[in-house]
């Protein structure tokens, strides 16, 4: 075991994967010599050479499009989009190409490709350094979508993503790159050192895609969250003093519906928390599934706490962020519901 930040854990997963398999190549904007604006690829170019880790022109389309070709050749590209907010120029290559290559060629060509990108707000990044576009990927058949919430998970899930035979969207919640975050931006920052999830197994390991983790067992209600919001939800639950079961989805697609439904059937109540804009966010899919599967167990409407349906503003960031106060209000509302 070692202490790692999420950045170090990601770098470590890349390092180990590149060391084990020379088909793994890593590239993106500022990813080579400099090691990435968040330092997730630090040292890799030096260690593995310029043709396995390199800087690219500023073209997200080019990065993903070239990666699709490389994956079709037989390499395993793991590329970085500098911010999730800048993935849209590559959106066509992701949804029309990477996602459907296996299907349209009936397995003749495949696309084992990972697109890593820092996502989420809470760093005063304004509307173009704060977005959480996961629902734009979960709607696309052929993609897998992963959002880790701890360094330990980030390493294991990224390793699994790189080894996955299909394209994986890997969203890294940048607000918790350096430490967990309970949603109280006015409190001192906590480093990963002080958090169980910052204890990272050394060497190679994987966490299978498609398995949620119960972060806090409980009986009174189920809270579904992922990424940064897992920590915010956990804090909110404590503050609310409710015996909630908090589930960290980890992988949105494929979804661990079993763990979710088991929990909601047990608790009869469900709150969903995410940072992305509410309308057509991934919470909509979760709510739709939960009410369909657990209809006869539900004692209150499934309730979403999400980013407002506005762009992510700069100075009003903490009014936008679905923080503890809003989560507690939702929990209280759901607990008070009586039929």
């Amino acid at each position, binding site marked *: 075991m070692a202490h790692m930040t999420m950045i170090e854990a990601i770098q470590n997963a890349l390092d180990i994967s590149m060391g084990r398999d020379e088909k793994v*190549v890593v590239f993106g904007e500022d990813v080579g010599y400099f090691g990435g604006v968040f330092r997730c690829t630090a040292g890799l170019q030096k260690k593995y050479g310029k043709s396995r880790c390199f800087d690219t022109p500023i073209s997200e389309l080019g990065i993903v499009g070239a990666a699709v*070709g490389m994956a079709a050749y037989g390499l395993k590209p793991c590329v970085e989009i500098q911010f999730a907010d800048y993935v849209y120029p590559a959106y066509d290559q992701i949804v*029309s190409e990477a996602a459907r*290559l296996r299907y349209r*060629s*009936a397995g003749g060509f495949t696309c084992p490709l990972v697109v890593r990108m820092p996502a989420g707000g809470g760093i005063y990044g304004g509307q173009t350094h704060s977005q959480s576009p996961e629902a734009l990927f979960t709607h696309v058949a*052929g993609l897998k979508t992963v959002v880790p919430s701890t360094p330990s998970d980030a390493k294991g899930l990224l390793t699994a993503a790189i080894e996955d*035979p299909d394209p994986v969207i890997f969203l890294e919640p940048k607000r918790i790159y350096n430490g967990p975050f309970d949603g109280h931006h006015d409190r001192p920052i906590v480093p990963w050192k002080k958090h169980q999830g910052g204890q990272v197994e050394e060497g190679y390991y994987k966490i299978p895609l*498609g398995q949620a983790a119960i972060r806090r067992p409980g009986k009174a209600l189920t809270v579904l969250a992922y990424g940064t919001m897992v920590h915010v939800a956990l804090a909110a639950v404590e503050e609310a003093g409710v015996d909630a079961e908090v589930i960290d989805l980890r992988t949105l697609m494929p979804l661990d519906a079993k763990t979710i439904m088991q929990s909601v059937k047990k608790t009869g109540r469900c709150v969903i928390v995410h940072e992305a804009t509410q309308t057509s966010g991934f919470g909509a899919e979760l709510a739709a599934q939960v009410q369909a599967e657990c209809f006869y167990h539900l004692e209150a409407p499934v309730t979403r706490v999400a980013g407002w349906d506005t762009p992510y503003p700069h100075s009003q960031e903490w009014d936008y962020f679905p923080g503890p106060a809003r989560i507690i209000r939702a929990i209280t509302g759901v607990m008070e519901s009586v039929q």
Partner: protein
Amino acid sequence: MDEHAPLSLTVPEPEVRPGGEPDFSSVKIPRAGAIRRPEVDEDPENMRDLAFGIIRVLNRDGEAVGPWAGTLSDDELRQGLEHMMTLRTYDARMMNAQRQGKTSFYMQHLGEEAVSCAFQRVLRPGDMNFPTYRQAGLLIASDYPLTTMMNQVYSNEADPLRGRQLPIMYSSKEHGFFSISGNLATQFIQAVGWAMASAISHDDKIAAAWIGDGSTAESDFHAALVFASTYKAPVVLNIVNNQWAISTFQGIARGGSGTFAARGHGFGIPALRVDGNDFLAVHAAGKWAAERARRNLGPTIVEYVTYRAGGHSTSDDPSAYRPKQESDAWPLGDPVLRLKAHLIARGLWSEERHTQLEAEVLDRVIASQKEAEAIGTLHTGRRPSARDMFEDVYAEMPPHLVAQRHQAGY
């Protein structure tokens, strides 16, 4: 300050529209043999002229002349003729099959057969094409079975793509033919990535990217040029300028630049412009470009000047936007007739043998068609199961798809 007249928008227009007299007098056509052939490692800056001429080998008398002549043996030339004739016959049969309702859609190559048939001969096993929908000649020239092609067009049970893809969207890794996408241009940057992967792996395989004149306006074209230029990817960047993009003439995509080949100049990528209806010229240019790639000298752009003699697809009627006789007026002639004339001029061929080969090709295509139709067509016979629909979305079927498959009754 000076006064200026009000601004106004320029919208390029083709010289003639339906009702007018076809006129290609503005297309400057150098005589065969006139364009020089530089060494493959010459500085791209010194080859600028090649993007503005048209490399031609076959002259009016059917002779192969000039520095680009002589890249093919007699046998290869005869084989090339056969490939083009096969493609043309195949197209005609499939156009008809579509009209008969045996499939939903088809796209033919009429007039452009030389481009893909000749280019395929410069590739080696393991090289990879990233084609558009108008390069089936690559498959035919690499002996991909006609019946398999038809199975795909018919979406029948033997369709290697299991009915999932629109007709003519073939895919065959073994034949160096990347899965065709319905989304234009996306393959262009993928080809560059594939070539980069070959270089990263210290392999000796090269990639060939394909794009239409109209599609060069897409973003993927730019990404491909940027990446190919920066990483010197071993790739041939083929632009098939068949003068039209559905109803839109090539001047809309080309704008103020003289040619599509010239697009390479902003990237330091050497660019050739070739008579796309001249089998020998296509082969010679392709070979030169492939040699550059193999010698790690980087990418080459090749623009094939040709003409889409038929409709864009079975959904299109070109008489709505261009004169009906425009195709006959096209000054570069017909690729099949030109190669035939060359072979005859050289005493390697005769009208009789040609007629005989035509019959043979037709027999072969019909036999394949019977075989394919015996399996099934879009609406009849043995067809892929709806069960297939749920396969290959992922390598392993996730639980929600298993559930949906069950819901669908499978």
